[in-house]
């Protein structure tokens, strides 16, 4: 932790860019939740951008806090998200695919 001293301007710009792109990706995921027709496409819209968005925000936090202890904790959160979000989405997708009544007729699954 840097105890309140000012960040380097270039670092502040980088942090701002990462925060805003992370938040923007999360907002796009939430909008996709409303715009897509069925559970499988909504899951596609929700899980991928939100994962990239949360990792962007966590990298920004690691740069802003600037210590190895904070960076390790944030790396743990990022690793956990990167492993668990695909696993959870895969399980939801398999559960939905078993009972296909919810799948929109235009949805193509490869």
């Amino acid at each position, binding site marked *: *932790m*840097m105890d*309140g001293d000012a*960040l380097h301007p270039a670092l*502040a*710009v980088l*942090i*701002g860019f990462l*925060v*805003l792109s*992370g*938040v*923007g990706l*999360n*907002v796009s*995921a*939430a*909008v996709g*939740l*409303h715009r897509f027709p069925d*559970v499988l496409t*909504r*899951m596609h819209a*929700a*899980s991928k951008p*939100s*994962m990239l*968005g*949360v990792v962007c*925000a*966590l990298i*920004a*936090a690691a740069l*802003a*806090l600037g*210590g190895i*202890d*904070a960076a390790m*904790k*944030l790396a*743990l*959160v990022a690793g*956990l*998200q990167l492993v*668990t*979000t695909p*696993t*959870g*989405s895969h*399980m*939801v997708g*398999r*559960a*939905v695919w*078993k*009972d296909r*009544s*919810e799948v929109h007729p235009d949805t193509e699954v490869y």
Partner: protein
Amino acid sequence: MMPSVIALGALGLTVAAALCILHIVKARSFADRLVATDLLLTIIVTGFALSAIATRTTTLLPLAVVTALIGFVGTTTAAKFIETRGM
């Protein structure tokens, strides 16, 4: 510059969380609700990262770890429940 970026980010996350909650209310099936809840928990983790940037302290980071873990356990358990019992 930094406070306005944090404020804009907080506003965006609020909008995203509100959209998620609206979808949880409006969803037709349990799996739909599950996807929205998973996204809501991811947004909460992003909010913890944002608050760590705003306050420049590491106090809330363990909460982010716990929230990520709860999201995983909850989603997989509920998905297993849907698989065995149907939607």
